[in-house]
């Protein structure tokens, strides 16, 4: 598949160079790139959204976090809380909330008059059903829980009255409210949640309360959504009330990236998902908008296995940390839309600090670290110690576009300081096996809404994900993650989070690259008012088409 794919791209690049520019010029309109949202919004209009695949069905717990299905879920469902691209939380279906008893108990107050698209009320009972589904899932029916929901300390959710929900945890759950804004926590009708997993796979059975409803569809091929005329409970933060402005959105599967791009460029569709980063500049010059939203979460980077050769040597970890030229990656593989990382979490997470000196590019420093640790240059330029060559395998993260080009460049950069990197490219299926084998460096992509999530991945405490394979051996890391997980006020937690970022980076447990852009949107100049939430999904509730 890869050589074919590659040749096709190269071929198409040629075609585009020869004829495409003519098409672009003809259809792109003026090259003005000033505010794309100028003008007065108008009602009506239809857009077609091209996406590479809808392959995994519509079981919400499995697909709501997907880059592909997640785009459509966001239009047909609501959440209790809204999170904007700065990480700010604001009311949505929950009009207000109270945090009691040191963040162990919560009270959610629901908006009046919210209904699912089948007319049944979205009341406290419905919210309780959703909370239980997120926390526990139904493994006996093949339905998994929502991964990032704080379920280990979840005790209960109950309806105090039709508009009030009480939620209890056994220990402080500072991240609970933020999690309600997470894309895994979409509100669905209790009827839908009670269905067997095979029935949930059918999108027609998925009853949400969002600004759009499913009108017609052909599974895996195209989905037509139309606006709900009685919708009036969008997040106030979006600055719009009442129903959506667009009449319909058609999600249409077109697998080939170059065909998706050309289709929008030639004016046959309005939005294309995930175009090649290299094409952004020329598309922008033609007047197209390219959305590169950044989600709240971890940056693009590597979890380091501290027990595997050669990253069990802390000087090797440090050398890699300082041996990677992240600016060269941005300039070569990406565009100016990508931001430098300042720590291992994305810059829009409120707790993110600037610890960039802990991983600043300095080849001489990296070489010296290796020299001092006894890694001497061998006959072929790669360093050797005790008869072992300084080498390790590296696999690009197949869930993120262009990580292959990125990791190829990293391999070259590390070669310059005498480290041999053996690149191994796999597909999504192979990546699960790579993860299970615990390689020295594992490239990750993970969004979260609350910094508390970080505490759950660092060590093996409380069934943690043990990203660095330290178990509970690093006493300082244990203390820091416990302190974050059990913090009951945000200020003290922010201080600990800062200490934690510094420590993890200095120890070389996590090697950040750049801030992650996992979702790219190519948008026609006529489409205005698209907004992005903190999970980097485009929201078309406020979008409109200029006449």
């Amino acid at each position, binding site marked *: 598949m890869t050589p074919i794919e590659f040749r096709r791209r190269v071929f198409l690049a040629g*075609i585009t160079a020869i004829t495409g520019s003519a098409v672009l010029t003809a259809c792109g309109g003026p090259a003005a790139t000033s505010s794309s949202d100028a003008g007065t919004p108008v009602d009506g209009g239809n857009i077609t959204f091209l996406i590479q695949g809808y392959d995994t069905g519509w079981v919400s717990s499995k697909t709501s976090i997907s880059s592909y299905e997640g785009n459509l879920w966001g239009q047909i469902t609501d959440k209790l809380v809204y999170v904007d691209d700065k990480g700010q939380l604001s009311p949505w279906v929950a009009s207000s909330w109270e945090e009691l008893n040191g963040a162990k108990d919560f009270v959610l107050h629901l908006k009046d008059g919210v209904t699912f698209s089948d007319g049944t009320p979205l009341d406290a009972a419905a919210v309780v059903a959703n909370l239980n589904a997120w926390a526990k*899932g139904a493994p006996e029916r093949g339905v998994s829980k929502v991964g990032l929901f704080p379920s280990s300390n979840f005790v209960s959710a109950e309806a105090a009255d039709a508009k009030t929900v009480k939620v209890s945890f056994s220990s402080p759950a500072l991240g609970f409210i933020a999690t309600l804004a997470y894309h895994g926590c979409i509100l669905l009708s209790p009827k839908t949640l009670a269905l067997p997993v095979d029935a949930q796979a059918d999108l027609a059975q998925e009853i949400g309360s969002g600004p759009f409803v499913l009108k017609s569809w052909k599974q895996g091929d195209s989905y037509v959504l139309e606006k709900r005329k009685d919708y009036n409970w969008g997040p106030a933060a979006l600055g719009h009330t009442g129903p959506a402005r667009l009449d319909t959105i058609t999600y249409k599967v077109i697998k080939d990236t170059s065909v998706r791009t050309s289709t929008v460029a030639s004016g046959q569709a309005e939005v294309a998902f995930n175009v090649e980063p290299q094409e952004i500049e020329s598309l922008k010059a033609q007047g197209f908008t390219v959305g590169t939203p950044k989600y709240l979460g971890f940056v693009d980077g590597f979890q380091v296995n501290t027990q595997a050769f050669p990253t069990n040597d802390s000087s090797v970890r440090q050398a890699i940390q300082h041996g990677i030229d992240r600016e060269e990656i941005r300039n070569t593989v990406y565009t100016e839309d990508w931001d430098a990382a300042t720590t291992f979490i994305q810059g829009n997470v409120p707790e993110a600090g600037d610890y960039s000196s802990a991983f600043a590019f300095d080849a001489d420093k990296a070489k010296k670290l290796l020299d001092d640790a006894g890694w001497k240059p061998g006959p072929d330029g790669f360093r050797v110690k005790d008869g072992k060559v300084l080498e390790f395998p590296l696999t690009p993260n197949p869930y993120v576009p262009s990580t292959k080009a990125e990791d190829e460049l990293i391999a070259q950069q590390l070669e310059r300081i005498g480290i041999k990197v053996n690149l191994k490219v796999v597909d999504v299926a192979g990546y*699960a096996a790579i993860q299970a084998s615990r390689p020295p460096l594992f490239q990750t992509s993970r969004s979260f809404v609350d910094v508390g999530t970080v505490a759950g991945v660092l060590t093996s405490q409380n069934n943690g994900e043990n990203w660095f394979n330290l178990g509970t051996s690093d006493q300082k890391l244990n203390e820091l993650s416990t302190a974050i997980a059990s913090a009951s006020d945000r200020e003290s937690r922010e201080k600990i989070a800062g200490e934690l970022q510094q420590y993890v980076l200095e120890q070389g447990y996590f090697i950040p690259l750049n801030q992650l852009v996992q979702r790219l949107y190519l948008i026609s100049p006529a489409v205005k008012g698209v907004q992005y939430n903190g999970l980097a999904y485009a929201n078309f509730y406020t979008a409109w088409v200029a006449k």
Partner: protein
Amino acid sequence: MTSGYGRFALARAGQAAVVVLLAYVLTFLVISVLPGDAITNSLRDPQSGLSEADIQRIVEFYGLDQPVLVQLALSLGRFLTGELGFSLQSNLPVSQIVGDALPSTLTLATMALAIAVVFAVAIAYGAHYAPPRWAGILRSIPSFFLSVPNFVIGLVLIELFAFRLHSFTTTDPNSATATLFAAVTLAIPVSAPLAEVLIASLDHESRQEYALVARSRGLAEAQLFARHLVKPSALPSVAMVALIVGELLGGSVITETIFGRDGIGTVVQKAVTGEDQPVLQAVVSLSAVVFVAVNLAADLLTPLLDPRVNVREAANA
């Protein structure tokens, strides 16, 4: 003759059933050898944040934790009773997934086959009767058709007819025009071997004595072609068409991907990527059945069309 033909037919049908069964078992074992499975692959997305224990519970629900041979026995048992099960990737019924995709592929394949036959006959006729200079060019066309990759043809057609001439839109791949261009894309490489075989057998038949006799009696070349040469020349092509059906199913993956059509090729591609065993088993079995059935039909037809074929020998072979 009749009993000989009956035995021959029975032996061929038996072989066909064994081939289908072997295809099923082989596919199952090949997928089992691949790392991971459909459920783990999707739940292990770094985004999901599920623990190994959470994932294990779901894997158990689908019975994917059992030994491969037990899974194979269960799966084969269901298959033999006609139950195709549910997709592991999308949770939808396999019969629905295949049923939704089949019409699109059948339309495409039928249209492509028809176009391929027209191309092949036109090339063969021209190669045989055109003035020598043109005939030479026409004779080299099949190898040219074979050497241009399918996706190149498809992308050129899309760039030219969809984006520049606006004959069709890529967002509506099932429209008649879009289907026609997809069928041409698929037909071009498929017509090549057919044309080769036709040219070769036309050359052969026109040198036969009966053709010589017909010519000496003053029959025009066109009449000779239509009345005497077409039928014997078509005989080897019957076997060729049977092979081509396989290529139509296989080649449709790339054509469907490029033209954005949702057909069997796309279903296979998704199922392979996602290691969606139930879907893959169903499609492979379906393809095996189609392939075997067409070849069986060709095998059974040949002795009826050509009395020179000795069924007794064939049955014992």
